[in-house]
């Protein structure tokens, strides 16, 4: 047996980067465990309550990059109350106390305070990258601290956060010495921005590759920014409104033409359709186009634009593109892998913008399609069966028929067969979202065929406990299950409690599960945290065991019940 010096093993481990492989390596023997844990730099924690910051720090003192996720996914549909939890402060406090040299922090659905941001910015001298997705609790004052104190900041990426905007001044907090920016995204901010400070910042950031502006940045500033940063790869425009006959517009046209590296385009938060022709010269290079925040673009304009985008791999668009528009996508974008069609009018009277026809056209024209999010008014089994045949490579398939329990609009049958065809055909399917009228049959299919399924979202579906059991028994790789408004009760919940230790989490709301059922589950599985979220007037003591639980969220945890739960959350 050869003797490998520690530094040689460490050298080998340098090239082992996936979390799964690093976990394997650390299990080989005690000395490997030791070497690996000192050299692991990146950690992903899918549920911030599954482990404590202290344990993280104890195990990985060399940590540089941390990703944390907080609230469950259904928070996106306003099903999780505001103060439920997911606070990042204890993590930042613990990291600050330790000797960890944090450089990157990525948070999703967490509560972030200005205090946290300030502590972060002042503690970690090498901090480089902050990515906040669907977070809340902070204001632009917190951003000012990041701008002012993080001397080597490379990335500040704010996606879909709820930020209290105290207007403009935070931008001026980037010091003159800050020249390291590579990525800056403040599109979700609602307030004014110091445009002069923005221009100067971009001018002194030669490495800037990604820039996404908010609504407050007008077109003439965009033109000046593009003149300074023709090397951009990823651009999100702010307000895109001007008089197409103006000199500013003409300058913009030439500025855009110089941006030969742009591969990703988004924004158009406010848009004058007649100005879109300036974009045409760079459309041929685009691999990602996101027009989901541009309701000002109608179908004909969208179609015209897309006809120039032959290399598109990802397209996010509003349903006003219509089925015909999707037909144009299908015939133009042969490289398309991901399509997201968002509702422009989710509560509308059903101006049937996209239907099953558009989806079928896409499936026929885009054989590489592997990821779909499709909001529509209606669907048929026949269409889904065709889609399944045309596109066997789906990894993510999320179909959202806006009206709950809507059947196949031609046959009036449930959509069991359609979804059944999808799971049978797409052997690599990892993520599935169901909608429409569905019986237990669809769950039978899912349990039988969806062998790689990791995340499943169900709403207003099924006949009884059998449905849920098919899924729990069949899907061996299931990690996250979220259910709302389904007739699943205690029998399904309690049949195989050990299953939940193999999953990250289970969410059930407005189902048939009672308090008693949840209590039994919590008792049998002490390693799970079973939370009851009860927003009604009733206190803990008056809710009878037989009463149905409004919202239950359970997850496995290594550190017992959390201490930061608000009043309306009871942990059993």
């Amino acid at each position: 047996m050869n003797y490998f010096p520690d530094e040689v093993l460490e050298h080998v481990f340098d090239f082992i980067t996936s979390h799964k492989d690093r976990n394997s390596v650390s299990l080989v023997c005690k000395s490997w465990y030791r070497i690996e844990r000192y050299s692991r730099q990146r950690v992903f924690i899918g549920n911030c309550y599954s482990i404590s910051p202290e344990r993280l720090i104890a195990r990985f003192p060399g940590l540089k990059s941390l990703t944390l996720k907080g609230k469950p996914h259904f928070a996106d549909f306003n099903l999780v109350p505001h103060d439920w939890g997911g606070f990042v402060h204890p993590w930042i406090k613990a990291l600050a106390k330790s000797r960890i040299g944090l450089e990157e922090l990525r948070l999703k659905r967490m509560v972030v305070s200005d205090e946290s941001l300030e502590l972060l910015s002042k503690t970690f001298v090498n901090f480089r990258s902050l990515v906040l997705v669907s977070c809340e609790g902070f204001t632009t004052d917190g951003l000012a601290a990041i701008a002012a104190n993080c001397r080597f900041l490379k990335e500040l990426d704010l996606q879909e956060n709820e930020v209290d905007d105290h207007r403009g001044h935070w931008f001026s907090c980037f010091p003159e010495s800050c020249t390291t920016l590579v990525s800056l995204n403040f599109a979700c901010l609602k307030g004014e921005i110091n445009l002069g400070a923005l221009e100067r910042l971009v001018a002194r950031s030669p490495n800037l590759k990604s820039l996404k502006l908010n609504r407050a940045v007008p077109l003439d500033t965009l033109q000046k920014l593009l003149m300074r940063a023709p090397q951009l790869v990823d651009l999100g425009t702010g307000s895109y409104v001007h008089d197409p006959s103006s000199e500013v517009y003409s300058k913009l046209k030439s500025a855009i033409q110089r941006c030969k590296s742009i591969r990703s385009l988004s924004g158009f938060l406010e848009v004058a359709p007649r100005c879109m022709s300036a974009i045409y010269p760079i459309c041929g290079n685009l691999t990602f186009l996101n027009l989901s925040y541009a309701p000002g673009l109608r179908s004909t304009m969208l179609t015209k634009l897309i006809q120039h985008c032959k290399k598109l791999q990802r397209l996010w668009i509003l349903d006003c593109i219509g089925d015909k528009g999707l037909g144009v996508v299908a015939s133009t974008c042969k490289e398309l892998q991901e399509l997201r069609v968002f509702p422009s009018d989710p509560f509308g009277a059903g101006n049937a913008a996209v239907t099953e026809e558009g989806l079928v056209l896409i499936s026929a024209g885009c054989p590489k399609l592997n990821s779909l999010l499709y909001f529509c008014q209606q669907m048929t089994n026949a269409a889904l069966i065709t889609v399944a045949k045309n596109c066997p490579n789906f990894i993510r398939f999320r179909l959202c028929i806006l009206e709950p329990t809507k059947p196949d609009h031609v046959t009036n049958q449930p959509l069991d067969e359609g979804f059944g065809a999808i799971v049978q055909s797409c052997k690599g399917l990892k993520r599935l979202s169901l909608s429409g009228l569905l019986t237990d049959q669809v769950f039978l299919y899912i349990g039988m065929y969806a062998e790689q399924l990791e995340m499943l979202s169900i709403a207003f579906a099924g006949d009884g406990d059998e449905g849920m059991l098919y899924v729990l028994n069949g899907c061996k790789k299931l990690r996250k299950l979220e259910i709302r408004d389904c007739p699943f009760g205690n029998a399904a919940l309690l049949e195989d409690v050990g299953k939940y230790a193999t999953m990250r989490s289970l969410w059930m709301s407005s189902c048939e599960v009672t308090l008693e059922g949840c209590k039994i589950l919590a008792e049998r599985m002490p390693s799970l945290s079973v939370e009851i979220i009860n927003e009604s007037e009733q206190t803990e003591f008056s809710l009878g065991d037989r009463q149905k639980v409004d919202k239950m969220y359970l997850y496995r945890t290594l550190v017992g019940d959390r201490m930061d739960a608000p009043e309306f959350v009871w942990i059993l």
Partner: protein
Amino acid sequence: MSMDTVKTKKITLRTADKEEFEVDEAIAMEFGTVKSFLLENPESEDPIPLPNVSSKCLSTIIEYFTSHLAFRGSSSEEDEAKAYNEQFVKAQDNESIKELILAANYLDIKDMLDELTQAAADRLKNKSVEYARRFFGVENDFSPEEEAALREEHKWAFEGVDPDED
């Protein structure tokens, strides 16, 4: 002027199994330990002992550098070197990779060590813990409880990135 002064200087290296190799100075200087030795002992004519390197290893390493030096200066040097390295690494079985890593580490050959450790890492990717143990000839010294606790920690807390991006 005699032809000898134009001839490339040769350095003699003696391996662990007492074999002697005459190599061009250019190649010998790629080995950090040899280079340091020569700088400190410029006059020495004796064979340089390499007690931690086998003759099989050394001859493989010499072959590697002979090829690499031939690429030097050519216009497609980078591509040729890359292609050669791929083939070279592929041709080595697991035992050889391990031996070569130790030799390259001892001889202080940075670039080659990078290539070899990357190759070893690639062979471990997506493999089981048991495979990694066999590959490196390492015994498991965790108790069953310790191992189970670690596996749980990995699965529950440090599992890895979500494919769903939700």
